């Protein structure tokens, strides 16, 4: 069958297989899979409120996924999304609080600040890789921890005066949307989702439609040939990390200006950044794929929250189901293989 069909079919089948195995796990551990998944569905899309929460949850996943994916497309592995997200979050809130401006200026400024901060945080591993060939994986991992401690310091001693949380950002810098909230029975859904989708489009345009995208992809696939063709490999490495970091920073801004509307001291990482790795790769590092993978993640994670209440299934089980789904999607080769076999057998 044609590759086009396969590329659509495989993820669907992978997800189904993942759910089936998850069901088996549930029943062997004494839970009713029907109830379990019933609860999951309800908790994810059961009514306008849950739907709203799910979409809100998808928003940062899209940006985090885009961040990881963008770096991957240039042959770089950005494990630092977690940290870039935190600094982006903090910067956007800071700008939100520091100024008093009309919304048309203030909001964009705050969002941009988030992107900028994330970009800056990713610039360091980028430049180290480009100039000194230091492996970006190590640096980005280390930068995560530095971000955590640094951001907590900023929030407690610079942005607020020794508080656990900052002030709420004023309406002029907020992504919160009374409209969306009322539509979804007062969920925390905010305008961020539109930015996220726009971000996905920007991602696609940059990579597929612009000359720098051409360079970034080329460098990602063959540095020698790119150098031969007169591209500046080091410049592209830095650029890629910076753009990747900007997406991560935006994920943070969504939390800072939308979901929460303030910044607070973090005891540990949110995990969105690490999930972003899976989202990106499940999405095949392409824009539309990332959006879909993010949706999948958002649905599963959000639906998981009421599984214990509705069906007694502990949330951890959802982690397991997610893991299994990831395995199957990642192993799409074997599924494609089996599908072809099946097809052969059929005719």
């Amino acid at each position: 069958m044609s590759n086009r069909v396969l590329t659509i079919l495989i993820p669907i089948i992978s997800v189904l297989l993942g759910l089936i195995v998850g069901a088996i796990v549930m029943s062997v551990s004494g839970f009713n899979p029907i109830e379990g998944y019933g609860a999951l569905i309800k908790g994810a899309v059961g009514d306008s409120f849950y739907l709203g929460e799910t979409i809100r949850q998808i928003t940062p996943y899209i940006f985090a996924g885009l961040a990881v994916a963008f770096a991957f497309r240039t042959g770089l592995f950005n494990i630092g999304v977690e940290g870039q997200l935190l600094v982006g979050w903090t910067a956007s809130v800071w700008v939100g609080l520091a100024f008093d401006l009309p919304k048309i200026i203030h909001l964009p400024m705050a969002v941009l600040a988030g992107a900028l901060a994330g970009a800056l945080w990713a610039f360091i591993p980028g430049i180290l890789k480009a100039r000194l060939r230091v492996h970006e994986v190590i640096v980005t991992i280390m930068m995560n921890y530095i971000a955590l401690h640094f951001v907590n310091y900023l929030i407690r001693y610079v942005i607020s005066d020794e508080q656990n949380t900052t002030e709420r950002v004023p309406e002029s810098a907020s992504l919160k949307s009374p409209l969306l909230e009322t539509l979804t029975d007062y969920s925390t859904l905010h305008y961020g989702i539109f930015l996220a989708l726009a971000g996905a489009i920007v991602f696609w345009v940059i990579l597929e439609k612009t000359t720098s995208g051409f360079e970034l992809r080329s460098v990602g696939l063959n540095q020698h040939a790119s150098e031969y063709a007169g591209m500046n490999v080091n410049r592209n490495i830095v650029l890629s990390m910076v753009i990747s970091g900007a997406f991560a920073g935006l994920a943070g801004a969504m939390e800072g200006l939308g979901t929460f509307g303030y910044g607070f001291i973090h005891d540990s990482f949110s995990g969105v950044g690490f999930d972003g790795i899976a989202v990106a790769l499940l999405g095949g590092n392409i824009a539309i794929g990332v959006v879909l993978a993010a949706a999948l993640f958002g649905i599963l994670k959000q639906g998981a929250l009421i599984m214990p209440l509705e069906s007694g299934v502990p949330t951890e089980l959802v982690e397991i189901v997610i893991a299994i789904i990831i395995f199957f999607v990642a192993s799409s080769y074997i599924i494609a293989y089996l599908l072809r076999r099946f097809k052969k057998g059929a005719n």
Partner: protein
Amino acid sequence: MDIVSAFEILVKSMLFASAPLILTALGGVFSERSGVVNIGLEGLMVIGAFAAVVFNLTFASTFGAATPWVALLAAMGIGGLFSLIHAVASITFRANQVVSGVAINFLAVGLGVFLVKAWYGAGQTAKIPVPMYYTQIPILSDIPVIGPMFFNNYLTSYLAIIVAIIAWFVLFKTPFGLRLRSVGEHPLAADTMGINVFKMRYIAVFISGVLGGLGGGVYAQTISQDFSGGTITGQGFIALAAVIFGKWHPLGAMGAALFFGLAQSLAIIGGSFPLLSDVPNWALLSAPYILTILALAGFIGRADAPKAIGTPYIKGKR
């Protein structure tokens, strides 16, 4: 505190904090040397910690003082088995190795906590009845200054260093090691030399599971002494960093892990010295990470990964 005892503490806490990282990093070295990326190290540690703690809780009465050691064996076994999931996905099913590794991390935490809840009715186990304790090495520990500094620690700290040396020997002195590395550098060439690429990679990933599990087991029985979702939080990623920092060389990885442990205890001890007392706390807390970056930028520089890393081997493809 005086300089000598400061140094004593420094070395001591470097050794015990590094041991789990060393062992796990060595696991990473094996897997990546064979061409299989392993960012599932975190998950392997989790499952190892889980296995060791559960075993210790269950069989303390049976094995008495030997319990922690038998528990380590259990952790290694479970870790090994667990890593086979990664092997099947990334070697046989040609899954993207990074994704599969991420999945391992999800699965480990999910499964670990899920089972603990199922078995103990709580998301966190009780303290293990027979933990590991510092041990004074006879004679050696009596040497003035150096003795207490180096020879009064968890036995597992020495185990880690010994395993590192063994790993170096295996990888660089034995036929097995030569074959394993060849598979990571140029699998097709290895294939034409009659080496079973798939088998070698399976073994390598299995070993990484065994060592990752050991690392987790050691952490759980020496440091946390219980298991919960919060027992392993990021150590696996630090170990991954150590693999690269150490240029995929067993002794290098050991050095990197030790360096990190040292940086960490330096930051802590340093805090108790007046000259550093007015450094903001966040900077001290970040010091180990900053030092690592500086070390890399300063004198470690570039590292070349095994050539075939990350690419599944497909017979008949060039």
